């Protein structure tokens, strides 16, 4: 009982620390990049939320931000980058192109990156205002604090699968 209580408290503390030191991997593909830069700049200053360091290796990042249109040709690259992110990981779709394909209803654009990878936070707008991006980041921080996220869910599912396999073998 006491052990569990302290383990829970410890997880809270770790999540609290994680929440304010999110390293991001910007997967920047299109015009939304301008708004991303504005958000990173001194006026809106994403650094206030502890997410100021873009890492250009997915292995060093906590979450990936897909900023812009993803084409069918790029989709395998995005999937590979996502798979290289270290667990636990989160995904933010920045702008309507990443969220749903936006106005690109054609042969080239993916109709929303959630067709390829699971998305935790969607930020609407074409492009979203920096305030919306900050709002999205705060939503992401909430998820991190609560220890939630689609990558946790996937891990849990996989653990259960392994458990079931082990039980079947025993």
């Amino acid at each position: 009982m006491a052990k569990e209580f302290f383990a829970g408290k410890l997880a809270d503390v770790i999540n609290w620390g994680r929440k304010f030191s999110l390293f991001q991997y910007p997967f920047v593909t299109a015009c939304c990049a301008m708004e991303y830069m504005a958000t990173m700049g001194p006026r809106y200053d994403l650094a206030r939320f502890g997410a100021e360091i873009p890492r250009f290796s997915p292995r060093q990042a906590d979450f990936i931000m897909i900023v812009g249109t993803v084409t069918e040709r790029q989709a395998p690259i995005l999937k590979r980058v996502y798979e290289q992110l270290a667990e636990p990981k989160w995904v933010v779709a920045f702008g309507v192109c990443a969220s749903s394909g936006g106005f690109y209803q054609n042969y080239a654009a993916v109709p929303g990156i959630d067709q390829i990878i699971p998305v935790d936070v969607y930020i609407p707008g074409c492009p979203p205002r920096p305030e919306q991006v900050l709002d999205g980041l705060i939503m992401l921080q909430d998820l991190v604090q609560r220890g939630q996220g689609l990558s946790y869910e996937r891990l849990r599912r996989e653990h259960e699968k392994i458990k079931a396999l082990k039980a079947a073998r025993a």
Partner: protein
Amino acid sequence: MSQLALAKLKEAFPREVLATSDYRGDETATIAREHVKAVCRFLRDDPDLQFDLPVDLTCVDYLGEEPRFEVVYHLYSTTKRHRIRLKARVPEDDPALDSVADVWPGFNWSEREAYDMYGVRFVGHPDLRRILLYPEFVGHPLRKDYPKEGRQPLVRREDPPQ
């Protein structure tokens, strides 16, 4: 605007030039597709014309007309400062014409793009592969009879959200 380029072109190729127009100084010549390469050589090498800058090469799909496709060339002369537009019609059953990538290497990628999007073959092109789309793609998406949302995905999740 000088009408020089069109006049010289008509003089040198009286039969190969099918039609010309110069609406508001936009000099345009329609050429039979067999002679595109000779005309381009002439435009580049003639000392009065010197079209040395390949601005753009693209294609238009006139679905329902015959010949169906029209390849369009835009040229500019950086020394003489004039422009010309060439057009050549290509039929649907044999969409091919001579490559001018060896006349202006700058048209190499433009021809690949026209091939990728419209399926027009440029005979004699050094490396006629798809340039924007992936090799697995079937068909040519800017043809008017290609379905608008004819996606050909490379990857998809097993459990995409509804």
